[in-house]
């Protein structure tokens, strides 16, 4: 890795470092937590950061660090599941729209536009009013909102590639449309999809935090950074450290995945750098 490369890809490197640190924390959380996440030591409530409780304790005397670590599982789970959900549906819709075109394209894209006009929170609010609050519903609401990006990107790629020689060649050799779509064209559109996933991951984490902050996301007592902030707000004058920890985690995760996404884009498309 040369100095020149590093200088040209500051974003990528910072993003990668932040994400790597988060992944490290996530990995550790599966094997080791300083305290039981739900254990309440009432006598230790509102302890400021100390050697026993590195990030202090909350209003029930639960260890904030352990809950932050466990919360990273929630955040990554929400990010991964909702983006996978959005990606699979978005890519399929986008491929069909781009490859088949015509009225089907028009129909799919208008549906996508409608979905795009809804703010995530409002979509989730309506969704939750109808189907109730649950982690699955939160995932679906966030995932639904992320579909348009993937659909649009995939469609764009398909429109571009379907006129390429290699596709025409494959078609003349009698390959089935499915084979052409998924074996020939899709691999070529992967890189924008990966970039969108990274950016979408950040948005998903932010949305989950927002919903949990409003009490519409992950159900207590399971730790989520957003719901921790919601609780922390009630005690912000007594235990300000409790407000900082989840906020910083959300910010760092969003920042990390945004930078990573931007970094990959710059790498793929060096013109944007100059």
């Amino acid at each position, binding site marked *: 890795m040369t100095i020149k490369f590093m200088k040209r890809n500051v974003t990528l490197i910072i993003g990668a470092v932040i994400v790597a640190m988060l992944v490290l924390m996530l990995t550790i959380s599966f094997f080791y937590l300083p305290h039981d996440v*739900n254990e309440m030591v009432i006598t230790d409530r509102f302890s400021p950061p100390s050697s026993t409780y590195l990030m202090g304790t909350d209003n*029930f005397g639960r260890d904030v660090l352990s809950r932050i670590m466990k919360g990273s599982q929630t955040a990554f789970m929400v990010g991964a599941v909702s983006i996978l959900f959005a990606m699979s549906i978005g890519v399929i819709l986008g491929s069909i729209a781009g490859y088949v075109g015509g009225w089907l394209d028009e129909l799919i894209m208008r549906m996508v536009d409608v979905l795009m006009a809804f703010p995530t929170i409002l979509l989730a609010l309506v969704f939750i009013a109808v189907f109730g609050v649950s982690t699955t519903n939160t995932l679906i609401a966030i995932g639904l909102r992320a579909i348009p990006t993937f659909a649009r990107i995939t469609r764009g790629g398909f429109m571009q590639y379907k006129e390429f020689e290699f596709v025409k060649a494959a078609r003349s050799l009698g390959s089935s449309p499915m084979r052409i779509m998924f074996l020939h064209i899709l691999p070529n559109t992967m890189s924008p999809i990966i970039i969108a996933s990274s950016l979408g991951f950040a948005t998903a984490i932010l949305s989950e935090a927002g919903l949990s902050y409003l*009490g519409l996301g992950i*159900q*207590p*007592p399971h730790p989520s950074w957003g719901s921790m902030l919601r609780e922390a707000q*009630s005690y912000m004058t007594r235990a300000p450290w409790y407000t*900082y920890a989840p906020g*910083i985690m959300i910010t760092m995760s969003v920042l990390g995945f945004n930078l990573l996404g931007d970094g990959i884009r710059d790498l793929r498309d060096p013109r944007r750098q100059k």
Partner: protein
Amino acid sequence: MDKKISVVLIIALLMTLALAGCGGSPSEPAEIETPDNSQTPVAEEPVSQDGGNIVMVVEQDIDYLDPHLAAASGTEEILFNIFEGLMHPDSTGAVYPAVAESYDISDDGLTYTFTLREGIKFHNGEPVTIEDVKYTMDRIMGTETGTPLRSELANVASVETPDDSTIVFTLNQRDSAFLSNLYYAKIVPKTNEENFNTFPIGTGPFKFAEYLPEQRVVIEKFEDYWQEGVPHLDQVEFRIIPDREAALLSLQLGEIDMFPRLPIDRVAELGEGFKTIEGSSNMVQLMPMNNNVEPFDDIRVRQAVNYAVDVDEIIEAVAFGYGRKLGSNMSPVMAKYYKEGLENTYDYDPDKAIELLTEAGYPDGFDLTITIPSNYQFHVDTGQVIFQQLANVGIDVEIELVEWGVWLERVYQGREYQATIIAFTGKLDAYKVLNKYISTDRTNFFNFENAEVDELMAAAAQELDDEAAVEMYKRVQEIITENAPAVYIMDPEFSIAMKENISGYVLYPMYAQDMSTVYFE
């Protein structure tokens, strides 16, 4: 030149972010200072005994201005100042004649005769006539429409007005709660029929001035109030701030004068310039278990849960120790009816709980969904503590948060739930507190069924001998505790915080903010 601007702008932006991230790293407690409690609120201008305006915060918006349509406790406590019935409650919860001057009960307890108070006026200056009183009763009973507006007067067979100042009620059967029920029959002028819900008129110490939904309700002094010497204040604004933190900050900044139901643990944050009155809220917080649903159809399981839940820990964890432990569905505030000693029936005993669970066929516990209305953080917090306590006896809890409306429809009305956490607000009358345990009652969402309770309640309702009725109500509480349809948790204690120069506030055993006696020193 533009270099300078750029530097200034960058510094400005950096500072914003630096401030935002102040104390950013959680391992730097040095940056965290304890909140500054020493600030004193803006000094009030010197005021005499009479006059002055007060802003009181309330957490909920009102449901109706029309006193006969209104049902929420949060509305009740505001309308208390605007309306009176023939009878009106005092600070002990007993009722005294208000729009009526006096009353007489026949020996068989079936005929109540009221004499209208002489010279009493509505807020619009019109005198209260016997027609207005009759009109009010007819409106509530739905004499003309056929559909009653409320059921408090359901037991009334007929209402007569033999002369200009007398009204006579004949009842179907004896009714010990009839006098206190008349409080809900708030007297309104017939002439205001069009505006009951937009500009209500009553006979209370304050008259309605303004209502902005989700913002405020303003009431003003009624000069012609029938009681001499009250009210003192010129104006009271009930400011609706659902968020407790925002409300507390407004109080600290002196924008609000009075804060009812402030958790006692927050009092220390107020600093100087405030005083507080502490008291129980006459609420019953509990975790009902659906008695018809497995595994709670087995009394041993319900008792096991009672043993497994450590109420003292909940009070400490959720209410910071400020709550009265309960053992049955009655708050100690209702001193007359309160059956003592029940709160220790199920002292925390996880071993006993496991024993009972094993007996009932659940040696390894079971999965339990507790459905909690999401708008009550207090109950959600309680649920988190119970989650942990029940885990100790092998019961795997999942907390399900639902919207208030969904809770009412599905849990309260539909009775489709396993367990839930809720609080009942105080009522004037023991019958209204305990009637939810009558097997046929609409609000018996426990699905509680006990023949003895049904009999006792029916007898108590008609019992005119107060002492005998009290004994019956106490027995009902005992039976409830034995059968454990719910885990009874606490009556949370709150304090009413107000600026130091405010006096005269009186605490009621029910949702009522009586502003008539409040004055500035």
